[in-house]
């Protein structure tokens, strides 16, 4: 799937991946690939600006992990959870609408 096709959906995808628990940047990208069966193979570096933007917007929070390796771990904030709920509802409505046209 090309990066252009994901335009406008990357935020929801990141929020969706983090709904299962906190992850660092590399793990988020791996989860996007794994959960999409390899279809979402977007340029890896482009996820990081989105993570920083979502954090600046208050949808994510992050901190350095205390482990063998120093990693920035991201998690959903309460506002991020609400936003994910909105995005899921919007996506469901969109899929239903497009299905209604294409599935006939």
């Amino acid at each position, binding site marked *: 799937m090309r990066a252009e096709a994901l335009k406008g959906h990357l935020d929801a995808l990141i929020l969706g991946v983090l709904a299962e628990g906190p992850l660092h940047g590399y793990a988020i990208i791996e989860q996007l690939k794994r959960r999409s069966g390899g279809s979402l193979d977007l340029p890896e570096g482009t996820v990081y600006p989105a993570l*920083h*933007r979502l954090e600046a917007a208050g949808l994510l929070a992050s901190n350095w992990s205390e482990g063998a390796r120093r990693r920035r771990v991201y998690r959903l904030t309460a506002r991020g959870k609400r936003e994910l709920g909105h995005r899921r509802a919007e996506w469901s409505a969109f899929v239903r609408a497009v299905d209604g046209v294409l599935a006939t």
Partner: protein
Amino acid sequence: MSYLETLDRELASAGIPSRRRARILAEFADHLEADPQAELGDPSQLAHQFADELGTTLARRAAFTAFAGLAVAGILIVVAFVTAQSQLFASASRASSALGNLGAWMAVVGGQVAFVAGGLAALRAFRTRRDETISGAQARTLIRRAGVGLGAGLVTMVGFGLTALAAVHHTASWWTTLALGLCAAGIVVLSAAAPAVLAAAQLRPVAAGSAGNLSEDLGPVMPSQLRDRPWRFALVVAGLVAVLVTIAGLAAADPFDGALRGLADGLACLAGFGLLGRYLALR
């Protein structure tokens, strides 16, 4: 030069502050350690993406923060006016001094500029709230409006303080103390909003697109006869301001001075539009 060194240089040239730059580099280093074959992308494009995405969020935040600060400052000024119980105007006309006149003009002109710039900053930020990224020109417009709004707000506060000081022998001492305290509080509130504007101004977003204009900001509120005719719109607004100030003069049984003030205020509106119109993307 290594990939990370090139990325660091590009991030710096995109205006990303050093602390955030260090964090980005640490994240990318961790990513490359986990997968040395990872294709993270062109450093220059990545740096621009960081500037565009963070620039959008920070510019919107600057606009909303400035507006909130101006709203609080506006309430403080209203409290000072209401508690003055018209004694300030009466005393000002009896004892108009250079200091008092200067302060009054600073408060009147500054207040109008702050209201327009701050309000339009918040309006543009609200209209683009769903956009992941806005153009670099739009981000700069938000920051300029927020910055001019805060600056004009500070001028208003100082001007009102000067007016209160100039009238100190003609007003109750408790009111002078209250007015100066409210002005000081307003200056603190507006100053507290400044870091958000400065943080946004550091970034240099480059996303393509226009800065927009007043017709786009006001949308359906803008009458169709005035749409995309900024100077005609400015003339109408200046005329309305002149009429309102003149009516206020009539109501205060001061028709001649009221008309003069109305004319001066209308011309000041037009001058402000001429001076700041392009800078604030009003035209």
